[in-house]
């Protein structure tokens, strides 16, 4: 599994390449978790991920929960229809900002970012 990171505006975009399963998930988890601690907007690009196992999906959910406790947002992009259907059927999709392209999600997250700059909201947790 390869991870590539770049910044698009305020959003840290991480592109994954390779299958996300119980073998690769722990390392991905560690790296993304460290990144999310520093970045208020993390976008994970799944376009290079051919298959995701339940352990891989758990990684996503753990990141979501971590982001929530920090007041940081996690977005997902580029999921195959199959992965998207699994996330949808299990209700996990509700947790994430999801879009087809990086630009779409960055736009959605940036709107939030602008709103927060104008009117800071206290974190609930």
């Amino acid at each position, binding site marked *: 599994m390869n991870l590539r990171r770049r910044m698009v505006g305020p959003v840290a975009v991480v592109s994954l390449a390779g299958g996300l*399963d*119980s*073998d690769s998930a722990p390392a991905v988890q560690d790296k993304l978790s460290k990144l999310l601690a520093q970045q208020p907007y993390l976008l994970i690009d799944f376009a290079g991920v051919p298959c995701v*196992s*339940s*352990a891989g*999906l*758990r990684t996503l*959910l753990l990141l979501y*929960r971590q982001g929530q406790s920090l007041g940081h947002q996690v977005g997902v992009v580029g999921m195959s229809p199959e992965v998207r*259907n*699994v996330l*949808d*059927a*299990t*209700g*996990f999709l509700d*947790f994430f900002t999801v879009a087809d392209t990086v630009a779409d999600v960055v736009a959605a997250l940036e709107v939030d970012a602008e709103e927060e700059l104008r009117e800071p909201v206290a974190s609930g947790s």
Partner: protein
Amino acid sequence: MNPSHLVRDRIDSFPTHTVAGYGVRAGRPQPFGATLVPGGVNFSVFSGQASAVSVVLFRQGEKQPMVEIAIPEEFRIGRVWSITVFGLDYEDLEYGYRVTGPEYPEINDRYDATKVLADPYAQVMSLRPVWGQPSDPDNAYPYRSRLAFDDFDWEDDAPLRIPSHELVIYETHVRGFTRHPSSGVTNPGTYAGLVEKIPYLKELGINAIELLPIFEFDEFGDSRLNQETGELLLNYWGYNTVSFFAPKAGYAATGRFGMQGDELKNLVKKLHKAGIEVILDVVFNHTAEGNEMGPSISFRGLDNSTYYMMTPEGYYYNFSGTGNTFNSNNPVVRDFIVGCLRFWASQYHIDGFRFDLAAIMDRDEHGVPLENPPLLEALAHDPVLRDCVLIAEAWDAGGLYQVGSFPNYRRWSEWNGKFRDTVRKFLKGDEGVLGEFATRMVGSPDLYKHRGARASINFLTCHDGFTLADSVAYNDKHNEANGEDNRDGANDNNAWNSGWEGPTDDPEINKLRARQIRNGLLLLLTSRGIPMILSGDEVGKTQHGNNNAYCHDTELAWFDWTQTETNADLLRFTGNVVKFRAQHPVLHGAHHPNSIDATDCGHPEISWHGVRAWEPDWSPGSRLLGLMWCGHHIENGAADYVYVAANTHWEGHDVQLPPLDDGWHWRRFADTSLDSPSDACEPGAEVAVENPENYWVGPRSVVVMVGYRNA
């Protein structure tokens, strides 16, 4: 919270022994099953007589085991074999147990060391991840268990705790509800598909859904070909459990990924959000292992004589009609069942259980009914299950019929089979049932005097038997498609075809049938007790006279969503009546009504009427009864009057309405003799009637009136 106080490592998370190349240490006997522990997996299994037990591990999908780890004899505590195995990839792992029995077995032992047995506590089974997928004939070990991570994020989901007497139950089948091509959902026939239909359920107004079995079963378990048609007949209903802690993978769109647990939990979570409770139909009376000829899946090879009722000669007692009988009052089996239900209530947030052939659960190991069956008592008082509704199908296939006499600890409710039988007889115009009909409508106090009306699950139809539409279109069952020469299925249907057997173009007959369906729904939903609607009855579902559709995974049994349009009138009628019930607490009180003015509204809570008010005709030939309910209004607590006139006579009658107090008048909510939409109006928009004193109740019609204060 100071993070340094979190436990990071455990000093027992390192192996002490090596077996077959794997680091292991003595396991923990509790909990039973396979549990993820730091660094490894803890396996624990009970066997009363085993002389050796191995954990057999497979890589997912591979035909042969990757390793067998014999549990060292010194790891055994009591009769529980447990071991912690380190360094396993939980996601890619399938497992089972190989159990060797004593050299000189008792007659009822069935140890077989050639088999790999499923873990009775497995939370995931890899038997058949996609519905209807044929087995691999080369797979010698089809019954493999898997691990579940089990950390679903429920967010703020909490038990709804709807008072049980306010429930309106909708009985349905996970697959059948959305499998039909007309369902229009993304994943037809699945838990996820059902999620997409929640708005429909909410619109209908029901607040509890009862799912036919969702514990892992094998649809191919007793599959066969219909000799005449060549059609493959599967076990569609699923009353044949393979694994009691594992949800049916084939009902999940994500079964291929082993995520059926998450998908089902998401369904429960979404239903709760919509205010709908979830009741599971559970089958503890027997297992899928069948009789002497059946497969060794799990219990048979672990401890046959503990888990099954056996004759002294070594045969299986068959009180379930399916080959074996689960020995549910044995202390080990009892613990298994209680633990299983606690698991579903706590891990899956299930709100209630309906127990298939529950009368079996009060038999002892020889099949003798017990006065104080320990299992039923334990369930009634269980701390985790305290808020769950417990519903008994209070009979079995061994001739025990306990409607009204099921050991109940003032806690259990029952499928009231007598409600169904009596109201159906009354509907078709039988003589001599008016008195019993009245008793059934007020919550069957003759049966449930000490438990209250909430003990009575009132229903006209359920998965067993005719649909409501078929009960007014057929006199007799037509089960030829089951391939058993129409021998299977019940013969006492209390059904009347309204003048012609099966479909007809005769407009008068069709009109009568439409009215009879509405009569049934109206009586069901104005009765005291907990009403249950069979999925599809609200749109006139037909099974073409088949009253035992257990083997049809076809359009015969599926919910046809086109009927929500073709029978939109009936759907609208049903929704209005469900909502009407919710708005009138006097109809869904927890207790049995009495004939005194307990609510101080000027009239008794229930009073009986005939063609003349206050003069009910209880004679055997009478087919007309008026029921006046008097209680408190749901919003303002003022008096609330509901009058139901049920006429199953083939002639209409000019009925005197019971006079209300000064300043009140009757308005019509429903009249099944009228065309839609006048058959039932929107609750709260009841219609003024011309004559305040008398109302014409048409032939075979039911009328419902509501008391209004004069403007």
